[in-house]
């Protein structure tokens, strides 16, 4: 039997689901190997019987958490889709301020007490609420990687996600290093798999696929020194997608570690 797949979305721009719609004719190949039983953005049909749940978006409210736990309990396999789900994405930028302060900035004095739609806490990635089996990184995800992961799962194999830096793919594309052009690129510490698409178009990497599990701290220190860049600039660059990688509690304070 073909595995039954259901898509779910939480706080996000829904751009990662859109990448799946953007597969065009290849969607037809996809539905050859899996049964799509729920995909609200494009279909009205829905079923609660599924094997693989693909979850997009961050978790921000108790009501979302409740829904996510239900999804987890029904699915054999759960995949986090896109940066909002895998690492919290840009939604985590606001975690640097207390939630009450952000709500005040945004809602001013609106009467939102007791309204569950507005009951918001600091942004969580999916794995901070339920166990995640596989990750499809990126903001947005890359269509090829999505196809690879789904194909592997349909064949009963374990999908492989790169754990080497974007620089590897960037070099392959024969780009001039953006540091040489005076830009601050997060390629050296960011997980590859995107084909270095941003640096290849002249834009520095923002780190949307998350920081490597073991970044080369020596190399980063050398870069900062060679190009006369500061820890503050590094931190500011990482505050886009990897806000909490610089949280001292986290233990991923790579630059500080390097400085010791």
């Amino acid at each position, binding site marked *: 039997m073909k595995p039954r797949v259901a898509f779910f979305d939480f706080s996000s721009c829904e*751009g990662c689901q859109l990448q799946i719609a953007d597969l065009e004719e290849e969607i037809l190949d996809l539905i050859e190997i899996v049964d799509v039983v729920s995909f609200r953005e494009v279909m009205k049909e829905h079923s609660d019987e599924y094997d693989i749940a693909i979850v997009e978006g961050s978790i921000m409210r108790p009501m979302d958490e409740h829904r996510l736990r239900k999804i987890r309990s029904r699915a054999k396999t759960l995949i986090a889709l896109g940066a909002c789900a895998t690492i919290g994405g840009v939604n985590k930028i606001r975690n640097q301020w207390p939630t009450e302060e952000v709500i005040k900035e945004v809602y001013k004095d609106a009467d939102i007490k007791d309204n569950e739609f507005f009951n918001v806490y600091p942004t969580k990635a999916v794995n901070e609420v339920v166990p995640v089996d596989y990750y499809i990184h990126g903001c947005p995800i890359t269509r090829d990687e999505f196809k690879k992961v789904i194909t592997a799962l349909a064949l009963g194999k374990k999908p492989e996600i790169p754990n080497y830096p974007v620089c590897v793919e960037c070099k392959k594309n024969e780009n001039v290093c953006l540091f040489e052009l005076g830009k601050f690129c997060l390629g050296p510490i960011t997980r590859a798999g995107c084909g270095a698409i941003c640096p290849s178009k002249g834009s520095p990497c923002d780190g949307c696929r998350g920081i490597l599990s073991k970044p080369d701290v020596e190399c980063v220190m050398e870069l900062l020194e060679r190009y006369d860049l500061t820890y503050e600039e590094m931190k500011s660059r990482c505050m886009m997608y990897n806000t909490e990688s610089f949280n001292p509690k986290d233990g991923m304070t790579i630059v500080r570690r390097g400085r010791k």
Partner: protein
Amino acid sequence: MNKDIEIGIEHVTRVEGHGNIVLNVKKGKIEKVQWQISEAPRFFEAMLRGRNYYELRTITSRICGICSIGHSLASLKATEDALNVSISEQTGILRRLAINGENMQSHILHVGYLALPDLLDVKSVFPLVGSKHNDSLLKVVKLHRLSNEMSDLICGRTTHPITLVVGGFSSIPSKKQLLKLKKNLEEGLETVKQLAQVIHSVIDKLPNFKRETEYIGLTSKKEYAFYDGDIASTDTGIFQKYKDYKEIMKEYFVPQSTALHAKHNRDSYMVGALARYNLNSEQLHKEAKNTADLLNLKPICYNPYMNNIAQLVEFVHNIEDSIIQIDKLIKNGIKDEKPADVKIKQGRGVGIIEVPRGILVHDYTLNEKGKCTKANCIIPTNQNHANIQKDMEALVPGILNETKEKIELTLEMLVRAYDPCISCSTHYLNVKFV
């Protein structure tokens, strides 16, 4: 007429984001009809505080997966306005191509993938595969791919563009690539004309409902406005003080929605393809005008369901316009320009453009270091929520005799006609009370 009806559609399907429809009828009397937005608020403007001017575009692009190019361009226009940066003619043309590509992508996704199933009596596009409508589906797929390939070429990527930067582009397409795109656009023009014939054959499935309302959008003497122009209303005419846009777009909070509502001259107004058409139809290119004639779209059209048709008409216009813009680029000679120089200064800037769902505003205040201290974004879908609510209130009494399923479908089709982008509309900020 003495019946009870209870409709609670949680998370309307085939729309972007989470919205609910609630209808309660007791003994033929309407007790509640409500368009609710339950999407979690995302606090974008709060997150922009303290960010460098060149990061604002990258962050605000993430408000919306479908109109990320539009958010990027409104963001760049606001930033450039604050910093007094002027862009080159070539950048202006390339940005028009970027808008055309996104408008095409979004419109064909909506008309073909999300709305067409209602007209063909199916629940999604999937049942169309291998059916007698297979050929129409393939046309939609072809046009969708064309739109995406165009955005990929101009912007580096369809969702969350890469090349759009303050002052210009980080990478510029070659003449060879543009000529290939032009050829594909010419083919696409023929395909969309055939698709218009298909829609023509099922057009009577669109409910014949009218409610007079106000339409707001950009207007320009030079062109059918998308990238540049003045704010205009079908009620009150042209408004030139763009930095005072809040005088036109009065946003307010309603408890049923995590997105703001908006009004101007009446209880509500509409933005988007139908609003633009009602304001600027004379400036459409030739084939777009022919498509409007074929599908019986005439200004002023007060039927919100015809927004689907206005989108198809604009799709044709965007193709024709893109061919003209590419010819201009080729004639001028494509230059490998670097983005314009930026001198950091303090100031406020406002960027207003038309995106697929209507008029979009980004408004930033930067400090002397070029960091953002205050931001406000006014999103098209927000501006439509009140109009959707008012339409529902006007529509429901006339369809109470129908079956529950038919009422549900008619209400869902109404919401879909607006092509709401709910993730976008719950970006949230600057709440005001009326």
